[in-house]
């Protein structure tokens, strides 16, 4: 029985992790703008989205969850420019 319970716990944790949507922004002030941009104009529902602050993004935002990733961070764009210039 404890093993079955553990297995259910693991399944539940995995499903929760899959359902989780994370919006990563470079600094706290960008949250509102990032939410609007990520939702294509309309506000994303606050309760479903976990917001993380990661200064290494430099600017912009990154939305990840449910097997999808939209990376609109400045870091990604700068890396793309660097790769194109040095290739």
């Amino acid at each position, binding site marked *: 029985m404890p093993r079955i319970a553990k297995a259910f716990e693991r399944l539940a944790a*995995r499903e929760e*992790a*899959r359902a989780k949507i994370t919006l990563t922004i470079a600094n706290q002030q960008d949250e509102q703008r990032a939410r609007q941009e990520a939702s294509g104009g309309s506000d994303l529902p606050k309760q479903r989205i976990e917001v993380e602050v*990661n200064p*290494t993004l*430099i600017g912009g935002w990154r939305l*990840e969850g449910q*097997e*999808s*990733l*939209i*990376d*609109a961070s400045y*870091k990604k*764009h*700068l*890396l793309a*420019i*660097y790769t*194109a*210039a*040095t290739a």
Partner: protein
Amino acid sequence: MDSSIVEKIVKEIEGYAPKAHSEHVGRVTAVGDGVVAIDGLSKAVMSEVIIFEEGKGKKLEDAMSESTVLYGLILNLEEDGVRASILGDTARVVEGMTVKSTGKILMVPSGDELLGRVVNALGEPIDGRGPFKNPTMMPVERQASGVIDRKSVSVPLQTGIKAIDSMIPIGRGQRELIIGDRSTGKTTIAIDTIINQKNEPAEKRPICIYVAIGQKESKTARIMQQLREQGALEYTIIVDAPASAPATLQYLAPFAGAAIGEYFMDQGKDVLVIYDDLSKQAVAYRQLSLLLRRPPGREAYPGDIFYLHSRLLERACRLSDEKGGGSLTALPIIETLEGDISAYIPTNVISITDGQIFLMTDLFNKGVRPAIDVGLSVSRVGSSAQTKAMKSVAGTLKLELAQFRELEAFMQFAQDLDKATADRIASGQRMVEVLKQKNGEPISFEKQVAILYAATHAFFADVAIAKVTEVEKQFADYLDGQHSKTLSEIKKSGVVSEDLKKELNRAMEEFKLAHAELFTTK
């Protein structure tokens, strides 16, 4: 930073239109021994290439310093995720890392600029001569050509080895297995075959691809050096997946070699691919399969080990004229243990290929090199590709040698043998000497025909057995110097006409007169 790079970056920024599109991703849940378990990627397909996102959480300058993109290859699709192998350094992958789907299956570069180069199993150059400028990408896994697209093997592939070209002929588009214990000369046969292609006119010369699987780097370096010294590297590509490479790369290397070869075949050219060796590839695949938790079968190999080799070797073929008439000849190598050709992997590959060249340790140790066991060696389709000239001089050679091997056992009772048997044994011994050949010294087709013509016409009957090899060499040099016209006529016509027979008889007589001291059995 270099001012030109700054200018480039400014230009890129000015013309840059940021695009943010949705990517299909998963997350690494477990990693170990070159294999990762990934949660997500539910839309991924088999053999799809994935990218590990290493830059996440790193500062821009650290992300920029990442030298190469780390790729993976999906090998298992499971109910709640996928399993993939890492095509690079496992230490760079951590749990929780985001993995991006590319929607592409694995491709390798191919094209003329690969000639003379050394690449890894992913087609990346590893010879320090810089990247390829404009290669054509070829899929590593491709369905073999169908029945309609093929035609029969009819053009010979000259190995330059008398024993093979005369008794176990190989045709362009054939799959001929080279099998034997360790250190019996398997690789030597393959390399001599590559070297011999320089005797072919440039327009008919096959592109050669040597795939080293699980070999020592020193051995591959030595082979490259040998090919360079002999002027054979310019039409050869080396695909190297050394023993130090991850199992995935050792498993992929033969497929990469086939993919590179298929590019040239599709262009209507002839290609020769050597897989050295498939036993090591099978071991690498077994390791990978066990790590992927696929059910083990006989000798712990996975159930699809036969399919692994059959789908690879089926890609060798000769295309029809409508498809350009190109060909891909495969010379897979298998290493046996204690001469056991009835083991699992050897029997599999023997049944897939169109024949085998079996090398024996005993013969090798006796000094018979190449140490080919004529009785166990066979070429199922090559005889239809053999030239008339070779057929006419070597038609009964295999049978005679097989009979000699049987009689050899009686040699210790030589005094009790009747004259006919004793003569047959003596003739067999001389024929064995004639067929001996040093490594790295392939002989052109026309010279082989002339030597075998002489051998089958009792030319060496009066030569002491110990001197046969020396006399043969002198006779070959004599033909080169005094009868080059006869040799070029054999090469041109591909037959030994009555006139050419007379010429060869005359050459034999002249040589005997000039070197009478060699023709004494003492």
